[in-house]
């Protein structure tokens, strides 16, 4: 099978591209930076560039679309350009090129309006109520992708939840950095149950999704993917810190003040950003989005996902942490 993987410079995209390559698929990757993956055709460019997308999609049987702007803060226009317009571009090119199947990689945050998600399935993307530019743009992107589902092009949206593993620049590195610099408090009791996905399992799930997506198979729907092993958020963070030899956070902040502080910081950050502050200022100490992520439950009903994908997680949480420690 000839498969295009967009966003292959990322942790998950790279993993998917390698897994497909290893099983004998002819893989093309599309991203701005060099992917560093051997044995694949590489197209360098942005998903916002019609020419780059067009040439990458041409001749493919299938597309796994991961390229996205992932950030806690940022300008809305940037999110729209990469996540919404980019997806639109990829979907349009795929349809034009006669691609038969598309796996759109989404995020559970597209349906997360700030309240706890307790054992729910993949509820519809809700751009009007989700929190933050990332989630809103990804919600719109998922709608764009699923709207393209047709007899000619089968589309499945997969929402891996909090993917982590060795080499992760997003979740793990930020937690470790914040913990090391004392900018990661325990919010509330730290007991909110949060499910995550070990990298290998997310890769497996995406490969399975690619295989089962078909007009007469799975298509036109969104599936949340996770390990199905939720843990209290403080326990997860402590385990990640332990794997990196960093002391776990102990400073506690009650939820309501934290929420307020996050809200204020977020606004302040946005103002500074608008006033011409450089992108290199890094991440704000606390955002409302982050506070909600750290103080509400989000774990998912995995039965439908596992049944439709014919997939179960291969690497358990404990094994995942062992590998993380070994790699750090």
């Amino acid at each position, binding site marked *: 099978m000839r498969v295009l993987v967009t966003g292959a410079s990322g942790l998950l995209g790279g993993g998917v591209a390698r897994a497909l390559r290893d099983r004998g698929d002819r893989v093309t990757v599309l991203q701005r930076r060099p992917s560093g993956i051997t044995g694949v055709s590489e197209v360098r460019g942005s998903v916002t560039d019609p020419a780059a997308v067009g040439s990458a999609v041409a001749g493919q049987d299938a597309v796994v679309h991961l390229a996205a702007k992932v950030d806690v803060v940022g300008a809305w226009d940037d999110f729209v350009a990469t996540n919404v317009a980019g997806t639109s571009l990829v979907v349009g090119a795929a349809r034009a090129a006669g691609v038969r199947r598309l796996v759109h990689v989404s995020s559970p945050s597209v349906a997360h309006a700030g309240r*706890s998600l307790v054992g729910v399935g993949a509820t519809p993307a809700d751009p009007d109520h989700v929190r933050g530019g990332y989630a809103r743009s990804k919600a719109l992107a998922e709608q764009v992708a699923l709207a393209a589902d047709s007899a000619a092009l089968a589309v499945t949206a997969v929402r891996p939840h909090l993917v982590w593993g060795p080499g992760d620049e997003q979740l793990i590195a930020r937690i470790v950095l914040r913990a090391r610099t004392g900018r990661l408090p325990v919010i509330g*009791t*730290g*007991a909110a*149950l949060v499910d995550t996905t070990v990298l290998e399992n997310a890769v497996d799930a995406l490969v399975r999704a690619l295989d089962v997506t078909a007009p007469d198979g799975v298509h036109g729907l969104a599936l949340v993917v996770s390990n199905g*092993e939720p843990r209290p958020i403080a*326990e997860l963070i402590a385990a990640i810190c332990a794997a990196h030899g960093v002391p776990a956070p102990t400073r506690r902040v009650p939820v309501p003040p934290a929420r307020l502080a996050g809200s204020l910081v977020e606004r302040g950050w946005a103002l500074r950003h608008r006033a011409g502050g450089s992108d290199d200022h890094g991440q704000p100490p606390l955002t409302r989005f982050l506070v909600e992520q750290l103080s*509400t439950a989000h774990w998912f*009903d995995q*039965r439908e996902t596992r049944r439709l994908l014919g997939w179960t997680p291969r690497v358990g949480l404990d094994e995942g942490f062992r590998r993380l420690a070994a790699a750090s």
Partner: protein
Amino acid sequence: MTRPAPGLPAEVRRWSRFVRTEDGRRWHLLDTHPDAGHPDTPTLVCVHGNPTWSYLWRRVLAAAPDGWRVVAVDQLGMGYSDRTAPRTLGRRIDDLDRVLAAVGVTGPVALAVHDWGGPVGLGWASRLADRGEADRLLGLVITNTAVHQPDRPAPGLIRLAWSSALLGLVTRTTPVFVRGATALSRPGPFSSGLPREVRRGLAAPYRSAARRSAVTDFVADIPLEPDHPSRPVLDAVADGLTRLDVPALLLWGARDPVFTAYHLADLRRRLPQAELHRYPDASHLVVEDVPDLAEQVWRWLRRVTGPGSLAATDDDRRPADPPGSPHRPPHRPPHRPPLYTLPVRTGAVPAGGRTDRPGGDDALVVVHPRGGRTTLGTDALADRVDRLATGLRAAGVGPGARVALLVPAGVDLATAVFGCWRVGATVVVTDANLGAGALSAALRSAAPDAVLGTRSTLLAARALRVPGRRLRLDRLLDRPAATEALDPGVDGRADAPLAEAAVLFTSGATGAPKGVVYSESRLQAQLDAVAGLLAPPGDDGRPQDRLVAAFAPFLLYGPALGLPVVVPAMDPTRPSTLTATALADAVAAVGATVLFASPAALTTVVDTADRLDPGRRAALAGLRRVFSAGAPVGAALLHRVHALLPDAELHAPYGMTEMLPVTDVTAEEIWAAGPGRGVLVGRPQPRVRVRIAPLGPDGRPAAGADLTEADLTGEPEVTGEIVVSGPHRKSRYDRLWVVESATAQPPGWHRTGDVGHLDADGRLWVEGRLAHVITTADGPVTPVGLEQALERLDGVAQAAVVGVGPAGTQQLVAVVRVTDDPPRRGVLAPPALATAVRGAARAAGPSVPAAVLVVDRLPLDVRHRAKIDRAAVARWADRVLAGGSARLDW
């Protein structure tokens, strides 16, 4: 034309139709099959009252099974039917007959009625019978209504509405009556009333004064006075009902200020065959208040109309009734022989030789906590019983009367129970620890004819609004026994063993207290079963054992089995007040060989054992058998009791208020078996059958809501609901048809609501309550085995395993009380403990707790302080693990 407005549910508007009858009246009705269909199609006709309309029955229509038509009419002047001049009850019955003919209801028919739809609908049923069409009647579903008014003042609200000064004002010119009647509905003590859309729906046709006029007229036609024009018709309806031999189901909201316990009792008198479910928290609008009422209506109709079905759930009579035969209990016998075997009654005792019995001088000994003791010989106890019986008879208490007992455990309780049985009355017994609210609810649900108590408990009964005449035990005892007055015609009629002997209330540890009815024969069978736990009779044919009853109910087994019994110096309502010293003194008092005690009592005994002097230590060694009763006993406690009483055999029988004992096991067997999936409770007692209804992935029995014998298995290692049978199971639940029909399954069995499995040796292991089964994505998980595994860990004193999240995809949560001080802050277990807990769980099964939480106490049941309220733990864990407050709710 006024028709159901767009704001009403789509279904209601779909069923809505208008029909003109031959007298030119236009009727509105809801009809699931307006084309009438085959004439033999059974039809359920629903008749609403005042001031509701057919909307009331929408859920009944929605739940109708295939093969049934449902027609709910709006009575003339009501709902969306024509407004008319005032109509009398008689004319309304004519009206109903006419409209049913007009819509082609000519075949078999069942009726559902509410409020003043009762006299109309039931009047029509009587008319069918009078016309020789009684065989068309399939069944009557009767919700809060009446066909007879007492000559005493009418219910306050109705009287208020009726009184002429207020009549027009209240009912026509203001919507107070319409709104007021719906405001009467309170689906529960904590509910604020009906949902807004339902209140609007009920009031929808009554928006203007003109449209409310029939409400006024209806109220005016309520025959409160004996000389009211409609009174003869009402009386005829009432008489007709008494003659109807049709299956009936009474679904009754107990919080109804209009139709009260008086009206319920009247209906039951007229329809002795009726099944009854009394909803303690439902109000006048019981049809609205009980969400699954429609489901229950159809469940019952299926039973009375289905092939081979049997409406009757009275277990006592089941074997005698061929399937499908109409069920009607026999009338109460005027006299029946007493249950107990006190020698005065059995004839086993030669005249003048009453003391020539084991325990003749010390049939009942009560050691008083403040010193001294009461010792009653058989003669003295029998004399007290006879004196009370004489007093009860003089007070008019006789066979069939229900007597609630509010007397202290000890001599008074024994006297009261046996005295009531002596005159053929039914004892109503609750647990003193229930708490005022539950106690009041329990006693009111049993509707006792009399309350027997002491001066102070009778005052309490008044505060608890317990119905029934007040009888003071000490006053009734205040006259000599007149046994000859008690004896006439004890003829042992064939149905006497079926007569109700006791209503015992469940503790409420596993739900709201439920009344459990035992007939004489079932209680006798229970005595036999308890006797089976004791030493076999000696060479002289006499029982050998002498009992210590540290658990109040067991003191009754002594006199009933003819064994001496001693109540130790303790507060019988607080088992944990039994000290080792008090126990030793009690043992010494009668040379006791057997102890019945709850785990709480045993705990205090071992805790206080270091204060025993050598003499008392020696006395304790006289105990041959110790039965832990009333709650599950922990492994650690068994070891401690064994250390104190090394020569006694420790037993932990399993049973419930509905059937006791089911199984028995000794501590040696438990220790030999080692840890397993649950608590080993041993082998079924003689004549007891134990089977398993295997669980499906949803954690409920896979066979569905109604079990047959084919759904039960005796296969080892299959986990499911524990289903038991034996001659000493309960007769039925009291006035709880819904519970009875859901648990007396298969016929002749009792569904315990516990889950467990049998092992290869035929022994039963209890794994928890059905309601506490956790349904993970990998299948159901039962809590007890896992909890035991956790409690074996160092540092864990007590554990509860519960599920959080939606059924079918729940996550396991372990909530533990630790032996050391809990962590100063937070609820998350320290990493080492969490790791240990998950390791133990992994060794015990496939599912690992998502979270391990630490608390300084777990919620326990009020009675025994032994059963963990897992439902409360689960609610708390759900909140904490969603990021909410960790403050304990208990």
